[in-house]
């Protein structure tokens, strides 16, 4: 019984994190019918930002040496959370603007310049200029040069392009973005795993019956619930939220009704990015996982499964699916079959899609010819 409750608590903790990531998938799937494959990597960026903020950017003090610094450290930790959310929201907007919007509207000149700058980063670094103003200058020169080189190619190709964007196409673009984040992270962050040190006081309480609950677990659950509540309020009770729901329902009709679809889609990506960033920061600071540039892939896929489990496009469904997924994984991890821990998500997915492809709370869609 004690072991059961212990795994249950662990499952809730894991599940609330999956729910945070799953919400980003479900929001984007709702408005664009696109699996944002790069979302798991946005989560990774949140964790990396948290690592940098906790170890370099912000003046955290060592709690062992300065026990009185607990209050300031907690305040700083909340600031870290906000920074991670802001950076990831911005990242989400950039991804949408420069990777997914050209899929819908065609490649523009600005897009060619942006990707020129991205491609210039590895080129500059491989020249061996790694630090200071010269590297920034070299990067800008190469990037702008590449952008100008790409422009005629882009406009020539764009003229000849049949804009027949298939789903496969969108998915491969998303995979490309995911690669950019992973390999960019590999260059900037390095392949070695890093840990965030203990920055906030953590305690573990033993409840009657020998059940142990940590403050970290409570904090993860509380912050996740708070963020999900805010999201629910935005989606259901604000103008922007109503526009999002309108686009999810019928993007063409929403356009005709005067909804600025592009900006609302950007906003959706910002929301999803902020939630994933928060998830990443919480995981990094409170569970002390190994952070590597590739560590977002698996949680990302599992969170996607959670979103499908709840019914893609359904906010409450994503939260429910995340919690269920976390519980399932925790119980498998605590059982004899712990080796199959990473496979359970896919087993659930397989059974679910075959039995109820619309998810637990999703609306069935009839196919139109």
């Amino acid at each position, binding site marked *: 019984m004690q072991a059961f409750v212990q795994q249950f608590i662990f499952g809730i903790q894991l599940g609330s994190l999956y729910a945070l990531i799953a919400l980003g998938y479900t929001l984007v799937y709702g408005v664009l019918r696109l699996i944002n494959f790069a979302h798991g990597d946005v989560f990774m960026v949140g964790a990396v930002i948290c690592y940098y903020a906790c170890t370099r950017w912000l003046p955290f003090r060592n709690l062992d040496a300065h026990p009185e610094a607990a209050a300031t450290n907690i305040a700083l930790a909340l600031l870290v959370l906000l920074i991670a959310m802001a950076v990831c929201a911005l990242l989400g907007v950039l991804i949408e603007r420069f990777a997914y919007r050209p899929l819908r509207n065609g490649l523009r000149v600005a897009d060619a310049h942006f990707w020129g700058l991205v491609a210039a980063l*590895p080129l500059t670094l491989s020249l061996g200029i790694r630090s200071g103003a010269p590297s920034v200058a070299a990067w800008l020169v190469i990037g702008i040069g590449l952008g100008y080189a790409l422009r005629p190619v882009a406009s020539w190709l764009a003229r000849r*392009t049949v804009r027949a964007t298939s789903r496969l196409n969108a998915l491969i673009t998303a995979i490309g973005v995911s690669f*950019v984040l992973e390999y960019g992270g590999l260059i900037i962050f390095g392949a070695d795993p890093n840990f965030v040190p203990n920055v906030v006081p953590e305690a573990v309480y033993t409840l009657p019956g020998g059940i142990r609950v940590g403050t970290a677990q409570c904090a993860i659950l509380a912050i996740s619930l708070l963020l999900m509540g805010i999201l629910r309020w935005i989606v259901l009770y604000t103008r922007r939220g109503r526009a999002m729901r309108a686009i999810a329902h019928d993007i063409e009709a929403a356009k005709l009704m005067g909804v600025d679809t592009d900006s609302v889609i950007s906003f959706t990506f910002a929301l999803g990015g902020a939630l994933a960033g928060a998830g990443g920061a919480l995981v990094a600071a409170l569970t002390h996982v190994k952070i590597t540039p590739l560590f977002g892939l698996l949680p990302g896929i599992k969170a996607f499964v959670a979103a499908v489990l709840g019914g893609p496009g359904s906010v409450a469904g994503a939260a429910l699916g995340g919690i269920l997924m976390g519980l399932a994984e925790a119980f498998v991890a605590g059982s004899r079959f712990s080796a199959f821990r990473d496979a359970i998500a*896919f087993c659930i997915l397989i059974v679910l*899609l075959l039995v109820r492809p619309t998810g637990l709370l999703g609306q069935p869609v009839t196919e139109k010819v």
Partner: protein
Amino acid sequence: MAIRLVLGALALAALAGCSIALSENLETYYFLVLIQCGIAAILAVSLNLINGITGQFSIGHAGFYAVGAYVGASWTVLWRPVLVRYASFLEVGTPAGDTVNLLIALALGCAAAAVTGFVVGTPSLRLRGDYLAILTLGFGEVIRVILLNIDAVGGARGLTGIPTLVAGGGLAAFWVFVVLIAVAGLTRNLMTTTRGLTWLAVREDEVAADAMGVSTTHVKVTAFVIGSTFAGAAGVLYAHFFTGISPDIFGMDVSIMITTMVVLAGTGSVTGAIIAGFALTALPEAFRFLKDYRMLIFSVTLILTMLTRPQGILGHGELGWGSFSRLLRRLGRHTAA
């Protein structure tokens, strides 16, 4: 008929000669890259049958590749030593014995991959689009985790010390290219049969195909099983020519890479898939001096290709003498004008 047989035999002999000459004159590293290119091309062609020609969105191809590799290697390492006591022709080390064993391993690997393809495809192909994609990705991962937990095939350590089955390794390229040609030829010829036309019909419009009396599920499962079979053959070749396999070389990243080859080349183009298989295997090797940066450049290139040319580099078209002469004529007109 006789002439064609003679020509075929001559071509095979020439290929074998080329393979041996290459293995003797090329550095081992380049020879291995060549083999890897061939295997990647087989995988790309096999997935192209499912993704490009039948239009079914499968991105878990590494699972079938893994099944082929494990079953083929199990034959050579685990089952063959038991049977060799009763059938001495299964002894490895002689050219004849090696060939027999490789053919048996290929047959078993393909059969196992086909069965897996049937088991995976029958339920999943009722879904379409994104759901099918995620489901196949999930099945691929489940296959990998299952292999990870079978102790008989080494668990996480994998199977090592698999005999190459080509005395000295000289014929490795021969086998890879024979299988590649067979797979590409079969795909091309199947596309002109009634069955192949139904694949195209399902790709173009599933509902219309259904209305015309095409049994869409049956058609899709057939394509899926054939594609899986080809991937199994690639797995057997990999296991025997790289002499070691473990579950982590059949991960999600391999599946994604195969899908990328198919989409980048142009879904439905057999020659495109072969070229992409070669290019996406050889280019990262060629740009090894760029270290980690090459993958970033690759990903930006991938995104830009998708944004500027959604139909892939070749689209549905094929690269052949026709397109070559068309290009020449166009160039000629250009210079004349």
